[in-house]
């Protein structure tokens, strides 16, 4: 963690701890994200953040049926019960920082991440608003988490990296995210280099977040 972010997030100051939610979107049998997750969690905990962590492939979660009942029938709540959908939506909106850790799949998130994001539309309202001349949904809650997306890619691929960055930025508009950071990593990155990359590239979000929770 660079000095500014460390000072801003240090729990010995008057700032409350950042509530970080980490969603790991590794697909079944894919261990490529393991070392990144380890460093990421350590980095967040070193800042004094309260970290909640889900490995999505182990979480029972039905897919979004596109029925929009979470907007009209039971506003703010998905009709599907008995899985982790409501818990995850609550964890997202209750966090200060949402960290999406995912293998980059065709330039986008893995299906494990996509499943939870699709189920999170209950966090916005059906009504429309305009942002930078484009129509988007109105946020349901007053406060949404900042977003940090960490994408891991097997082979360098500029096109996929560009698409991934655009996707995260566009999600941030729809989710009314106050700050966004994107980090794209290769699978062979060593722990020291990994820590440096995450520290540097996520710092802008953490610094801004620190000011927000203070």
């Amino acid at each position, binding site marked *: 963690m660079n000095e500014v972010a460390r000072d801003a997030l240090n729990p010995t100051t008057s700032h409350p701890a950042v509530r970080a939610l980490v969603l790991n979107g590794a*697909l079944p049998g894919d261990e490529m994200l393991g070392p990144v997750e380890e460093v990421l969690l350590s980095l967040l905990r070193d800042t004094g953040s309260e970290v909640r962590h889900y490995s999505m492939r182990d979480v029972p979660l039905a*897919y*979004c*049926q*596109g*029925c929009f009942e979470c*907007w*009209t*029938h*039971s*506003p*703010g*709540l998905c009709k599907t019960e008995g899985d982790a959908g*409501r818990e995850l*939506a*609550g964890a997202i*909106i*209750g966090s200060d920082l949402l960290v999406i850790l995912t293998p980059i*799949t*065709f*330039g*986008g*998130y*893995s*299906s494990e991440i*996509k*499943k939870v*994001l*699709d189920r*999170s*539309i*209950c*966090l916005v*309202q*059906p*009504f*429309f608003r305009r942002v930078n001349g*484009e*129509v*988007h949904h109105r946020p*349901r*809650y007053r406060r949404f988490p900042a977003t940090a997306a960490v994408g891991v890619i097997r082979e360098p691929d500029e*096109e*996929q990296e560009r*698409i991934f960055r*655009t*996707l995260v930025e*566009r*999600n941030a508009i*729809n989710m009314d995210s106050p700050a966004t950071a994107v980090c794209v990593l290769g699978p062979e990155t060593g722990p020291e280099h990994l820590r440096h990359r995450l520290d540097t590239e996520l710092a802008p979000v953490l610094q801004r977040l620190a000011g927000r929770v203070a």
Partner: protein
Amino acid sequence: MSAPRALLLVGSARPRGTGNSEVLGTYLLARLGEGGMDGEVHHVSHYQRPERERALFEAVDAADLFILSTPLYVDSLPYLVTGCFERLAAHRARVQGGTDPRFFAMVNCGFPELEHTRTALEICRVFARQAGFESAGGLGLGGGEALAGKPLESLGGMVRHVRRGLDLAAEALLDGQPVPEEAQALLARPIIPSRLYTLLGNIGWRRTARRLGTSRRLGDRPLP
């Protein structure tokens, strides 16, 4: 010699016969049929069991043209399509030496601007490259909710430009050509002007809520 075959995969999780993705896809398939191409429709939600999915992948391998018609979910492809594509790409990497069908994608979204569909179409292009398909391009459509799940032929002049764009796409696909930019330019024209679309959309949500008795709860914040 048998007729070329097109396989349409509908990416919506909505029940059959109710989704706009199916409306757009089946219209295109009908135009391809008029040009002599056989077509079949598959719904991705049907393929949630491995043995069923295997049959789908074999059908894709055997097709000459693989078409995806899907809604946009949270700025990209829905979970069901993303998962299907992950496994289809892995399947095609294992099955070497087969044919390379052409792949064509259509993404429709509930926002009036076409721009929202761009990222999903780019994801489709990378999928085609990685899964060994020859890309035939893609089309985005904004304001898709105006179709209300009804056949394009029944919607009259309001969607004339959409039908014309899909007709051009079908002609190009039948000729083995990439879908022309003119087709996208036609679909980029709003079905309903943007401000009217959002006004009608907001009225529609309120009307639904009134019918359900949830009008006062639409802005609820039930999560902690």
